[in-house]
């Protein structure tokens, strides 16, 4: 185990140092203002937009700002004096030409490593059977998908993912209130854990507990965001494209109305759980909900991390699903690589050389042979089909049990 852990850490440090997505620089540039005493980053960025080298808005929630900014303050001695000017450097080439970039990336991604390893240990202790726990631990540490998503794309969602997993550990022990607390903290980083509230409501033993566990996460979120509530916050973080994209896909039913697929799935599962399921297994509902969301929406690659630890648990519980889960995960990660975004593939390697800017993206290469949109549609359809069957199996087996 110890040797495996060391190998896993080495692999992660290597990916951290050598693959660079500019998002990590952007949100750390914004978080660097905490060191200068800025508390409300949302209004500060909008008011000072004209004078700032990077013009992006801060799209994350306040807790992310304070944690990243606080971490920078703590590690400023290691990062060195040139760090702030690197963050503020708007030159695409000079940023990757800076020889300190390896150090910056390793230090900035180090908190993700801590959280990543913490998830591995939570998975180890998730199962009563030690062997199953060790399998989950190894699968988490040695699957290429999460390494890529966390360390190449500098995925900040790992904060929410860890807290959501802790919430599930409490759910497993029937401690719904504690679970709702952790879901609340998780939603302070990303909103998606709030989508779990309807299922938590179903699980509550009586009306009092149902109300308590449903309102607690919302109350925590409101308490954290209320001091920052302003048009700038609403525009930048609350209704940003990334926050609302999950509920974008839909189909028209006429007269300006449409069925929103995300809400449709949520509602269908809620009523299914309410009307037909005598003993609700929340793990299964969460899995099915996420599987269907990814099947029917244009997802961001970072979202795949939301489901990753639960996929590991499922593959450990039901080894017959390991291969289908691996194949569907591979499909899910390949789809975004064909988006017309250079930083999904080639530009991640700009640290090696900026000559890679001359290379076409997989989208452009494929375009010469076949319609890339059709190709992505085929992959997404395959993902949806596979996810539907796995969802059916999850719910059916639960019914049989």
């Amino acid at each position, binding site marked *: 185990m110890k040797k495996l852990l060391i190998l896993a850490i080495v*692999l992660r440090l*290597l*990916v951290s140092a050598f693959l660079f997505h500019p998002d990590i620089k952007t949100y750390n540039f914004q978080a660097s203002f905490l060191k200068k005493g800025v508390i409300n980053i949302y209004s500060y960025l909008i008011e000072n937009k004209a004078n700032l080298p990077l013009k992006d808005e801060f799209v994350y929630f306040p807790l992310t700002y304070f944690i990243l900014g606080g971490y920078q303050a703590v590690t400023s001695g290691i990062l060195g004096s040139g760090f702030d000017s690197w963050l503020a450097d708007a030159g695409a080439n000079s940023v990757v030409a800076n*020889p*300190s970039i390896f150090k910056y990336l390793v230090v900035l991604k180090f908190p993700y490593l801590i959280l990543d390893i913490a998830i591995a240990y939570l998975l180890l202790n998730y199962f009563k059977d030690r062997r199953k726990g060790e399998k989950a631990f190894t699968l988490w540490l040695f699957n290429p998908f999460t390494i890529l998503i966390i360390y190449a794309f500098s995925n900040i969602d790992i904060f929410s993912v860890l807290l959501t997993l802790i919430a599930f550990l409490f759910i497993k022990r029937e401690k719904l209130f504690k679970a709702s607390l952790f879901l609340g903290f998780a939603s302070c980083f990303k909103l998606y854990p709030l989508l779990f509230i309807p299922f938590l409501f179903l699980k509550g033993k009586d009306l009092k507990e149902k109300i308590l566990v449903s309102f607690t996460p919302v109350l925590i979120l409101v308490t954290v965001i209320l001091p920052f509530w302003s048009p700038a916050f609403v525009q930048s973080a609350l209704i940003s494209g990334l926050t609302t994209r999950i509920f974008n896909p839909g189909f028209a039913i006429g007269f300006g109305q449409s069925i929103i697929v995300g809400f449709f799935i949520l509602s269908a599962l809620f009523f299914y759980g309410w009307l037909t399921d005598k003993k609700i297994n929340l793990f299964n509902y969460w899995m099915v909900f996420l599987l269907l969301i990814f099947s029917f929406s244009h997802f961001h690659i970072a979202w795949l991390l939301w489901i990753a630890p639960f996929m590991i648990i499922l593959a450990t519980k039901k080894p017959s699903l390991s291969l289908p889960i691996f194949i569907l995960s591979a499909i899910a990660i390949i789809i975004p690589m064909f988006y017309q975004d250079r930083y999904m593939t080639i530009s991640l390697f700009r640290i090696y*050389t900026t*000559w890679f800017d*001359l290379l076409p993206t997989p989208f452009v290469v494929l375009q010469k042979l076949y319609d890339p949109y059709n190709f992505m549609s085929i992959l997404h359809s395959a993902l949806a089909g596979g996810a539907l069957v796995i969802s059916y199996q999850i719910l059916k087996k639960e019914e049989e049990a």
Partner: protein
Amino acid sequence: MKKMIWFTTILVLFVLFIMPGIMATTINMIPAGDQPGYGPRRLSIYGKEELSQKFISNNKNLTAIGTTIKNPNLKNKKEVILNLYDNNNNLIRRSILNGFNIGDGDFVKFVFDVIPDSVNKEYLFTLSSPTAGADEIIEVFLMENPVDMDNPASGIIEYTFAEETFAGGIPLVTFHKPENKWEIIRGVYSNWLSKLLFPRSQKTK
């Protein structure tokens, strides 16, 4: 489980250490340097309004010239022509693109047959869109300073526009065909390793 450990370890090491080399083999030309910085000043090109730019090629095997071009509202769908002349004013290469393929603010490369003995030679090119009307302009940026401060040896000499000549010019980058694929692979790894192993010898901006 062992298979998964091996698979992931090999895949990660492959992506980090082999993949850049494989990607390098697909590069057909390499830039002579970074694109110089440019300011807000722009020149409009359409009809008879064309730009002439003098420069020195710092490397052999010149095969393309690139610069940033604006195509406001993507209105230009006409031919955009780059004519390349030697220092005796002989037309030696021509590259034609269609404005339809030029986005607003794209870095655009005009590719032509390789000029093998281009090292340290002076050239002049004209950039024009002769059939475009006044509402179908394309625009090129001008360098912030007549001499690229980050790279004084960029080779950019002077430009002529509306019959007037000035020092400096557009933020152009010349591209050169490498002698062989190994040259590129070596270049990629040596750039990465020198930054990693000898950070103090690297230039930081």
